[in-house]
């Protein structure tokens, strides 16, 4: 237990923080459609991301139907199977997870947690959402054009992505590339807001080291995204030119059906470098906010200060920095200088150190804590399990000689789903169960929440754990049919069927979550202002849900860090960040 040694005599009445002008719309459209309130923009982002995420989930079920029960469904053919695989990956990574954590949680939580009235550039923030929606609509449109969406795999590797013969090589790939470019422009607008708001709009007393780890995670992830997305932007642009105007940025000389194509001299490996220069930080763009949110959930629901706060902050920053110099570990099988392979394998394995520190700190926070097994806590603990599992297989794949035989097998699929799909999604659910009371004023139903957690958590293990074995057996990813692969034993099919049944079950239980979200909005128990008895500023607002401007007449003043839980000698087992020490109570405006 940490003894808090605040010097009470040091506090004096604080000065006022400069007030900002807020836009106060009076029409329905101004308030709820073209809203400039970060909280509402966050909800818009979240709902849109979840809606397209459900499409991604449905696509994963279609993939599993084919893999578990080959050729049983006549509407799945090799072409649309590849399209399902591609769109599932793109939607989940970019349009669901990135948008949800940064656009959704970022918008809702940053101003509230740092004690600001709103984001610093509200109009740009609004534009950011509308561009995101446009990007989603363009992507959805690609399902309805001739040839359907692209089926080149979510990595969109040239030359196959734009050659005839690949599904969706006509309009599908063009719309996908345009959609990605629009997404990135929109994200940049939002990202500038998140970064500058955290830097410039923190309330008085909120030093960087008093920020909740959620804000640290979202802030660092946004910095990564701002610097990494340009790589995807420029490569999407170059591929678009290769596809539409016959340039040869990435396209080598090719002979197709005896015909020489217009292309020549282009470098497909260049695309891979650019793509993964974005692609690897992308893993941490998703993971860092999840780390931050998980830390806050664990501390709050274990009623204990986070173990090693400084170490957690430094680990987030170091992971963020390192994530820019590991990208080529995705390209070990593309062929590279052995010293490059050595370099990238080394940097990749070094990331394990700060990551492991974080895991130890989560476990040590739980150690002898007053653990409340609430739904958010269950999801946070589930996250630690799944993340450790996925992280350990990362150590396998980070080594060149292990990666080469396992590349393109289901082992890789199992690894990245554990570490950057299921793990962040569990945190996302935990976050929703935790903050839903603040967003709506109602508690989510706990029984439904627990059913949702257990089926999702156990189900995710049933889906992805056996996939490691299939990977070891050499079962390839992205294959429509395995009939011709005589090296794979028949028992693999049994496991594949089991995985599919588990996947369908997990997908179905998500409907219960959606039902819970809607049902609780109308029928849920009233939450009150601070149902979890948490310390951070968003729980100290005068109104729940917080009104426009967040904090009523006076901005809160911060006197302490975000983790004063179970402080010895304190009246309650939590002390809000804006609660002045006893001797200075009169000075508080919070």
């Amino acid at each position, binding site marked *: 237990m*940490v003894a808090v040694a605040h010097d009470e005599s040091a506090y004096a009445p604080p000065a006022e923080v400069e007030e900002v002008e807020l836009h106060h719309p009076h029409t329905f459209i101004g308030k709820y459609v073209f809203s400039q309130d970060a909280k509402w923009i966050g909800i818009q982002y979240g709902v849109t991301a979840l809606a397209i995420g459900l499409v991604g989930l449905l696509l994963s079920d279609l993939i599993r139907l084919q893999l578990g029960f080959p050729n049983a469904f006549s509407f799945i053919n090799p072409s649309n199977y590849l399209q399902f695989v591609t769109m599932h990956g793109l939607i989940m990574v970019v349009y669901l997870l990135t948008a949800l954590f940064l656009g959704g949680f970022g918008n809702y939580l940053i101003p509230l947690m740092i004690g600001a009235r709103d984001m610093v550039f509200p109009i740009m923030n609004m534009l950011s959402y509308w561009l995101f929606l446009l990007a989603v609509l363009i992507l959805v449109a690609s399902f309805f054009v001739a040839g359907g969406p692209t089926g080149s795999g979510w990595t969109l590797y040239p030359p196959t992505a734009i050659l005839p013969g690949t599904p969706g090589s006509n309009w599908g790939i063009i719309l996908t590339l345009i959609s990605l470019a629009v997404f990135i422009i929109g994200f940049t607008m939002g990202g500038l807001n998140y970064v500058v708001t955290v830097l410039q709009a923190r309330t008085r007393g909120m030093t960087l080291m008093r920020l909740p780890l959620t804000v640290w995670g979202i802030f660092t992830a946004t910095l990564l995204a701002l610097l990494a997305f340009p790589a995807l932007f420029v490569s999407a642009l170059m591929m678009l030119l290769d596809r539409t105007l016959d340039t040869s940025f990435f396209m080598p000389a090719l002979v197709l059906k005896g015909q020489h194509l217009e292309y020549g001299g282009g470098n497909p490996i260049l695309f891979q470098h650019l793509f993964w220069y974005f692609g690897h930080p992308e893993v941490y763009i998703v993971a860092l906010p999840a780390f931050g949110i998980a830390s806050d959930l664990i501390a709050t629901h274990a009623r204990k200060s986070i173990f090693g706060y400084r170490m957690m902050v430094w680990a987030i920053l170091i992971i963020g920095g390192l994530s820019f110099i590991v990208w080529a570990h995705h390209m070990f099988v593309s062929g590279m200088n052995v010293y490059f392979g050595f370099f990238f394998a080394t940097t990749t394995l070094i990331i394990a150190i700060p990551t492991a520190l974080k895991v130890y700190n989560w476990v040590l926070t739980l150690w002898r804590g007053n653990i409340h097994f609430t739904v958010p806590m269950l999801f946070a603990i589930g996250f630690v399990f799944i993340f450790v599992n996925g992280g350990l297989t990362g150590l396998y794949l980070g080594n060149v000689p292990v990666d080469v035989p396992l590349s393109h097998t289901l082992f890789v699929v199992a690894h990245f789903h554990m570490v950057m799909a299921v793990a962040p999604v569990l945190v996302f659910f935990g976050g929703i169960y935790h903050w839903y009371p603040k967003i709506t004023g109602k508690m989510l139903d706990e029984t439904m929440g627990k059913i949702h957690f257990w089926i999702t958590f156990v189900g995710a293990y049933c889906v992805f754990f056996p996939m490691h074995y299939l990977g070891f057996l050499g079962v390839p990813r992205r294959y429509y049919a395995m009939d011709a692969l005589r090296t794979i034993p028949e028992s693999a099919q049994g496991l594949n069927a089991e995985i599919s049944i588990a996947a369908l079950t997990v997908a179905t239980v998500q409907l219960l979550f959606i039902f819970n979200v809607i049902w609780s909005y109308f029928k849920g128990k009233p939450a009150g202002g601070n149902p979890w008895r948490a310390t951070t500023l968003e729980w100290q607002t005068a109104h729940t849900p917080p009104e426009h401007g967040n904090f009523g007449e006076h901005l809160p003043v911060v006197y302490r860090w975000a983790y004063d839980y179970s402080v010895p000698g304190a009246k309650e087992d939590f002390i809000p960040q804006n609660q002045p020490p006893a001797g200075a109570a009169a000075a508080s405006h919070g």
Partner: protein
Amino acid sequence: MLSPLYLLFVIVAVVFIWLLRQTVDVKPWVEQRSVESVPSGASFQVPAAKVGLGVFLAVATSLFALTVCAYFIRMMAGDWRTFVFPSVLWLNTGMLVLSDVAMRSARAAARRSEIERVRLGLAAVGLCSFAFLVGQFWAWQQLNASGFFGGAGAGGAIAASPANSFFYLFTALHGAHVLGGLWFWAATTSRAWRSTELARIRTSVELCTVYWRYLLLVWLVLLALLVPAVSELCRGRFLA
């Protein structure tokens, strides 16, 4: 080979020192500083818009740096041919230099509170910048019409050689940033025309001045890379 690593170390060192100055080394659970000794919530004592511009320039630099990296890598292929330089590019560069000079004179006038001169300067900036964009478009036309490249495919001159493709890519990306700048220039100019309240105009003009200097610097780098002598020198070094 090692120079990017040195650069990385410098960046890491700068970030590290900045973070230490931001109290990232204190123990928040025993921290003794009173609220009074914390000057304010902001990390930088400048308007948020300035920090926003700084972050945006970092993003834009990332974009241009990655494009230039792609240019260097693509350059190593056997089909590389030197870029044939449309002469109008020199005139365009002159226009961009003039717009930068005009922008700086507008800033100086804003500091001296001479609103008439601010308006004059901003008008000159707009004129030169539009002239620059028209000139760039003209350069595209010149390349298309030059007839150097027989048998070009659907894309015409853009697909005729990899250097040409990069010329179009560079100018399009840079041009888009100029257009974005002109959007803010338009807002600043209309404000300068409507009001004489100089405090807000001054900040806007300052931000535009930084951005225009950035646009000029980026253009000079991109232009230099396209100059045949420079691109041949780079190519020789990479192939060696």
